[in-house]
């Protein structure tokens, strides 16, 4: 995943994982470092601070949007396999990203 995201963002992106933070937070979040003036700062911020599913909503780079969406799919599949091994429902909700926003009726 890291290699592909770096390819998509070009030389502007170098991803460095933070093992200490990862362990502390129990997550696999990655941080993008070494900023260059390539106009990609918003994309870096979106990837680094949000879950991938949220990032897809915000990303402006079209190929990166597709890539992250396919990663979300595969991560959802991993979750489904693990849930099955735990004897829990494998497809627990209609949207892996949580309930969609309701239209404003006010």
């Amino acid at each position, binding site marked *: 995943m890291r290699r592909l995201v770096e390819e998509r963002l070009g030389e502007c992106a170098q991803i460095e994982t933070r093992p200490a933070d990862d362990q502390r937070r129990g997550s696999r979040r990655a941080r993008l470092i070494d900023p260059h003036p390539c106009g990609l700062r918003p994309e870096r911020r979106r990837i680094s601070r949000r879950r991938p599913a949220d990032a897809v909503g915000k990303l402006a780079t079209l190929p990166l949007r597709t890539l992250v*969406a396919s990663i979300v799919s595969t991560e959802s599949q991993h979750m489904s396999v693990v849930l099955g091994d735990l004897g829990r429902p494998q*497809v627990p909700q209609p*949207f892996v990203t949580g309930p969609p926003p309701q239209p404003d009726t006010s």
Partner: protein
Amino acid sequence: MSLTRRQAIAAVAAAPLLLAADASADDARHAQAVAALTQSLELEQTAVVAYEAIANSGRLGLRPTALFRQFRAQDGVHAQQLVMGLQQLGAKTTIPPRRAAIPGLAQVRDERSAVAFAVVLEQRTIAAYLAAVPALTDVNVRRTSVGAMGTDAQQLVVLRQLAHENPVPTPFERGSHR
């Protein structure tokens, strides 16, 4: 920085052309988003009709029947959201197909053929969502589409396990257009 009179006149003259080009690009993006969402909706509606037919056929065991009912309900929610998304875009929505009009459904005679049918349908749906994601301009519709696609990918896992196949055969699930 100051403009010469000639530059100012040229800028004013070019403004409508630039606005027209912008509007044309917006129209193209809008049409692309509508087409992509419509294709996803057609596939979700097909899944709803087909899974209901399969679950009610009495040809499946208890667990597969329950799974097809669950998938039918979830795909129904997806279809509802897509209808709302299309309505937001001011587009017409499609109506669900008749059972007889769904290719391959008539050939479903047992659990094995039902699972094989559903695997193909889910793969096509995932591919349609993935094609739609870049075209969608509304952040909420895009996020909802990715959420539905993730759930369809999970349904695919369950179906592959029922077929005794590798549930996650690729690091990037992209579905299939076959």
